[in-house]
């Protein structure tokens, strides 16, 4: 069974407009304006690397793009629909992995992955495919131990394993490399490149520069 | 209506209740207004201090719209 994401088999959503359009996006936190209004477009196969010192609002920007945070001003359109009013199918095309791993400590990585897919109403993917994904993420022997006993790096890998089984076209990754060791970072870079080649889009923030990423546009929040 | 101050204060034997009610109202409302005046003054002194500091220090502090 060749490891790899199910990306190729799923037909990419028919984009009426370029993937993501962000116009005049400004966010506030604690009454202060975080960054000057941001404008950018993201088309298929493009990576946007968001840089900025701590507290500049990188996380808030990403959460605003996903629709979790309400922006102070600005408009975000994904395949033509505004993110606040887009329907479920469109919402499934977006995958957000934030600082927190969104894992249940009592459950094992396999159960967490099944839960993640179940909550996103994805058809019943057979277990072998999930096991392959976890294997690829370097969790081979840890598949059946509850997440509570895993290290921070292993938890992060479990969270990132979702990327291998997701059909989302837009990945929004907030500090994906935290707590990852060097070969995990390489694996991550390789996965992002694979996703871009398959016509996917990635928005990513990171304090360490990710080598080997091609066609990376950067957005600097200062 | 009342023959003399004493009768008025006695309030037909209900003095503690009537004056207890009106007294509490006057006291607490006066207290609320007074606290508000003090809070307002404090706000103004803070602003004045900031204004003085920012003009003397000569560094443009980032304004923020409300």
């Amino acid at each position, binding site marked *: 069974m060749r490891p790899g994401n199910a990306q190729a088999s799923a037909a990419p959503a028919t984009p009426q407009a370029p993937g993501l359009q962000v116009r005049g996006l400004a966010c506030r936190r604690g009454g202060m304006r975080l960054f000057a209004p941001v404008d950018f477009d993201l088309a298929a196969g493009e990576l946007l690397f968001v840089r900025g010192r701590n507290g500049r609002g990188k996380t808030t920007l990403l959460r605003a793009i996903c629709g979790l945070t309400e922006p102070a001003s600005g408009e975000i359109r994904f395949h033509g629909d505004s993110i606040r009013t887009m329907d479920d199918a469109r919402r499934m095309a977006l995958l957000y992995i934030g600082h927190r791993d969104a894992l249940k400590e009592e459950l094992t990585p396999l159960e967490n992955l099944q839960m993640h897919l179940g909550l996103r109403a994805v058809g019943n993917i057979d277990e072998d495919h999930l096991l392959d994904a976890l294997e690829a993420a370097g969790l081979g022997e840890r598949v059946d131990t509850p997440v509570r006993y895993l290290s921070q790096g292993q938890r992060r890998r479990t969270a990132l394993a979702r990327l291998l089984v997701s059909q989302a076209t837009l990945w929004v990754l907030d500090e994906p490399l935290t707590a990852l060791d060097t070969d995990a970072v390489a694996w991550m870079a390789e996965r992002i490149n694979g996703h871009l080649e398959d016509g996917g889009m990635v928005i990513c923030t990171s304090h360490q520069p990710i080598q080997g990423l091609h066609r990376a546009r950067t957005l600097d929040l200062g | 209506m009342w023959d003399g101050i004493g009768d*008025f204060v006695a309030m*037909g034997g*209900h003095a503690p209740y*009537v004056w207890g009610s009106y007294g509490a109202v006057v006291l607490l409302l006066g207290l609320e207004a007074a606290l508000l005046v003090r809070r307002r003054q404090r*706000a103004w002194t803070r*602003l004045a201090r900031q*204004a003085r500091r920012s003009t003397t220090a000569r560094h443009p502090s980032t*304004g923020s719209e409300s």
Partner: protein
Amino acid sequence: MNRRRIPWLYFTVPRNFYWLVQRLVPLIWAVAAVLAVAGLYVGFFVAPPDYQQGNSYRIMFIHVPTAWMGMFLYALMAVYAVIFLAWRIKMADVMARSLAPTGALMTALSLWTGALWGAPTWGTYWVWDARLTSTLLLLFLFLGYMALYAAIDDREKGARAAALLALIGVINVPVIYFSVEWWHTLHQGMSISPSGGASMAPSMLAALLLGTGACWAYCAAVTLRRAQTELLEREDSTGWTRTVSTDDAPPAPRGVAVPTGRRN
């Protein structure tokens, strides 16, 4: 139709609101003082003693207004909460936040005066009368609003959470009042509620209305002043506060007759 559109949002700009309050509050204080003096005079020197309760009924002239104001301010708070949640007008949140302490104080005073009125009339300071119990619960709703606002550090989130709570509260107030009324009638037999306003002498009614007017004016003045202070506390000195401290009026809105009172 009057050509001039009322600029609803004009006074939601902090600087204009500040200036408006600077003009309005002295007038409202004057109205409150006049009504209070008139109400007290009529209440104590014109209204005759009650044939049944003697003079203790005079507490009604302050008890009823505070009770009404408590409920009215909670409803008003909920209206501002809805405006804030629906249109994100910061001024609406400032108003709701400024109403809460005065509303809580009014509710507490109505309980205090109600108890002192109950003592000579029913023989005990506290009786689980339907209205007293519901007013007590209303006080808890006020305290809950203020506690939630204070507990959340981020002001923006705190404002939205408190506004949502005020909305939830105002939907529940009629249910609470109904269930307490229902509960009271089932356990009746204990107490008679004070004589209704039906057979009130005109002078009594006048004292009551004057008292209510004074109470309303007081609440308006204190709330507007607290909202003004709230704005000052939120601003840093480079904002509009610098111009206002020299007290010149902001540009008047198009076509609205602005009371050009003497600069105080």
